[in-house]
């Protein structure tokens, strides 16, 4: 690469030198008498250059597209994504036709109708019929594009199905935190930003009993394949934006205003590894709203797996309450009994010893298994 860079730099420098040396001669000749109305060689050269530009740019366009195509994202892993991809390429086809025709006409006319001695341009100030035609045609084409796009938009932004699996994703400088609805009740508990601290990064509110079994992760989000998933999106400090390129998902995370996006992923990570032929393929979640210094590296992995392995993975997870028993002090007295099973021991007791902890963890597993 670096050699190409050097080579190109040398070429550019050479070109610059040629230009500068030409400049001197050109400028010398420039002070001659005014040649009123004289239109000479340069007009023809410029006209021809437009045609050369047209031909070369079409070649460049086709070649560069064919080259770049290999790097475009693979087929979307969500039905809505395939739908928008189809609309994208359909629209792309329409505008490419318009792009080539209009640019070609522009350059061809420039070349064709360049100045010729003695010719007089046509006095052609208006043609209402023509103008009507080219107002109506774009209007109709655009109406079709808008209508198909609108239907897709309406469906994508519709309310999530009631049985959608809910996850919460919280943006902060500079990473994502995901919160799972828990090992038992599959319900996200309430949150309050004032409760955030280093132990409780998403501000889980433990006065809500649905919170007790919630667990969090900053490294990966596991979701089941083939089931509607509802992402509840929040931001803790500044704007962020959840971007899952392979799922064609994007939605801003706004402090003080939770947002949402639902989708159904239908290719597991393993399937995508086969499709892309890349054994290390992994889904990723990125940030696309500038959020400060670390904006470019807010990566969190997304693992899409089949129902069985998703459930198995869930069962291994420990509620945040179990991992950080100090949080129990926030539980109101009347709910303490319900939280007890997630806690290592009575909260008044001394720090749990390893034996009881493992027993309780086992208990949790049993409980969740029976519930499901």
């Amino acid at each position, binding site marked *: 690469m670096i050699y190409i860079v050097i080579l190109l730099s040398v070429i550019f420098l050479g070109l610059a030198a040629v230009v500068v040396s030409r400049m001197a001669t050109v400028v010398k000749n420039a002070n001659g008498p005014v040649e009123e109305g004289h239109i000479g060689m*340069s007009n023809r050269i410029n006209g021809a250059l437009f045609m050369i530009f047209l031909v070369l740019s079409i070649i460049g366009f086709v070649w560069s597209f064919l080259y770049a195509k290999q790097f475009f994202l693979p087929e979307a892993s969500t039905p809505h994504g395939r*739908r928008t991809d189809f609309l994208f390429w359909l629209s792309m086809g329409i505008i490419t036709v318009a792009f080539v025709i209009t640019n070609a006409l522009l350059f061809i006319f420039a070349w064709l109708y360049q100045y010729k001695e003695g010719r007089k341009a046509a006095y052609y100030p208006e043609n209402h019929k023509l103008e009507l035609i080219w107002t109506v045609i774009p209007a109709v084409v655009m109406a079709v594009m808008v209508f198909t796009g609108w239907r897709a938009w309406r469906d994508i932004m519709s309310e999530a199905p009631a049985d959608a699996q809910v996850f919460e994703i919280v943006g902060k400088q500079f990473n994502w935190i995901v919160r799972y609805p828990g090992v038992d009740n599959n319900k996200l508990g309430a949150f309050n930003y004032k409760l955030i601290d280093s132990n409780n990064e998403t501000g889980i509110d433990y006065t809500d009993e649905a919170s007790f079994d919630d667990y969090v992760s900053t490294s990966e989000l596991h979701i089941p394949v083939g089931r509607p998933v509802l992402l509840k999106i929040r931001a803790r400090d500044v704007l962020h934006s959840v971007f899952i390129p392979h799922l064609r998902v994007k939605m801003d995370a706004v402090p003080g205003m939770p947002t949402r996006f639902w989708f159904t992923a239908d290719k597991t990570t393993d399937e995508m590894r086969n499709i892309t032929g890349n054994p290390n393929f992994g889904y990723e979640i990125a940030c696309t709203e500038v959020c400060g210094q670390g904006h470019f590296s807010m990566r969190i992995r997304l693992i899409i797996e089949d129902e069985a392995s998703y459930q198995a993975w869930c069962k291994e997870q420990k509620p945040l309450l179990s991992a950080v028993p100090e949080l129990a002090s926030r539980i109101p007295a009347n709910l303490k009994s319900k939280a007890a099973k997630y806690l290592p021991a009575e909260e008044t007791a001394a720090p749990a010893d390893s034996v009881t902890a493992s027993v309780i963890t086992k208990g949790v597993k049993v409980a969740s298994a029976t519930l499901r």
Partner: protein
Amino acid sequence: MATESANPATVAHAAEHDHHEPQSFWRKYIFSEDHKTIAKQYLISGIIWSIIGISLSVMFRLQLGFPAMKLDFLRPILGGWIDETGKLDPDFYLALVTMHGTIMVFFVLTAGLSGTFSNFLIPLQVGARDMASGFLNMLSYWFFFIASMLMLWSLFIETGPASGGWVIYPPLSALPQAHKGSEFGMTLWLISMALFIVSQLLGGINYITTVINLRTRGMSFSKLPLTIWAFFLTAVLGLISFPVLLSAALLLIFDRSFGTSFYLSEIYIKGEALPNVGGSPILFQHLFWFLGHPEVYIVLLPALGMTSEIIATNSRKPIFGYRAMIASMMGIAFLAFIVWAHHMFVTGMNPFLGSIFMFLTLIIAVPSAVKAFNYITTLWRGNIRFTPAMLFSIGLVSFFISGGLTGLILGNSALDIQLHDTYFVVAHFHLVMGAASAFGLLAGVYHWFPKMFGRMLNEKLGYVHFWMTFIGIYLVFFPMHYIGIAGFPRRYYAFTSYDFTKNIFADMNAFISLAAIFTFAAQWIFIYNFVYSLIKGRKAPQNPWKSNTLEWTAPINPGHGNWVGEIPPVYRWAYDYSKPGAKDDFIPQNVPFSQTPESNLPHENELIGMEKEIEAQYLNDQFNQPH
């Protein structure tokens, strides 16, 4: 051909404007109230700003194209922003993209383009002695100048300039603890922009008043050149939308400094939960884009207006569909106010609003398409002279089409989900708004340089400049579409953190950077040409492009008051090129129909009777009023 017409009315009244005393150097060149001097001040400031703005983009292109490059050689300029290992600081990378955007959009393409050509051309093309208020006009420039100085200063402070993107979305921009660029640099940005808006409003009021009140006799709205229509509508757009940005900025200043919560709610940052609740960051985005979208047309419409004039003149043909062009511009100007939320499809705004704005956005494509078709038809069966201005105008139309078409995709909210804030957007708006407007600015300079400075720019250098820039810009922005389709998000310091951006398009990014450097280098040809021609350029003839508009009837170096003696009246539209039967291929606006019986169309013969009426009209001559 000298078009100082021997209009009897002009001769009848003797030149009576020499009662102005010679002015001191300061009043004449610095604190001048003359619209031509102010226009030149704007032009020079705009050129300086564009050099700074493009240099910043070259710096971040080095980082993006050659991530491994040691940037030690930038240390003399950037100092501590280059760390010990020769890497660009990520904070300063964001500062660079932010300041590049701010400078190019506001200081170059708004002030440099509108400020220069509205000021210069409105009085000269409508036939006025000067702007309605020379004093406000002067204030407008100097407010802009102070704004410029503050913005320039912010580049050099220790915590760096504003760096949350040119859209400065809060809370990032509101919380100094969130980001280095949200400290003093942001304060300076806001104050600078507030002053800039004041400057724009003073200018805009002046443009509107001048166009409405100070047109010469016979210059009805239906005879105005399209340039003036474009400047007029631009000024209206600015006058309505800039105050909204001012309020957005003021509320942000309150949030930053006075503890209010307009944009802040439920924030926990740096180990502390802030007390602010009830605000909405989305509110800022609505206010910002209520200016931000019209702003696109504020920079583009003047370019389109000047292009209409230049393409008609150099094709030697009337602009095709004069009325359709006006109607399109009015349509664009109106629709510009009701499409802003297409920048916000995925911000969590109500999806129903998204649907509405998608429909409105795609409607705006119709007048834009009409304009493009009209330009192409104007070339058809013309007799085209490729002056540098003409080349840049054709280039503008090409960019306008190429960049505008991708707007159809981005304006479609369903497709915007994936493409929002990727390089696809960067490619789109740089072509349609950045490059197209910049080409309008360059075309304008090449076309009106003779009127501004009485000398010609060198044409050959202009050709070289055009071809290098035209090719260079396509090489920079065309590949960005591919990068965007591959999902690369914009404003990323590096693409190494993600598998989907890692190890791909490194060569494409390097290529884009090289093309950017190449394009930047080409601009020095223009700078050289500009400076050289200013001093030693060929002397301009009276009407170098054989153009119809009124400015070419003024003296080659128009003095204070523009015309010696009375201002010529106007009898016809500005586009009588190659009229059948006429002896020349152009008939200036101030030539009455009674002098051209050989080429008059039937309805125009009827207008001959109106000429006496036009000449008898009250001339709103600013110099013949009691003062």
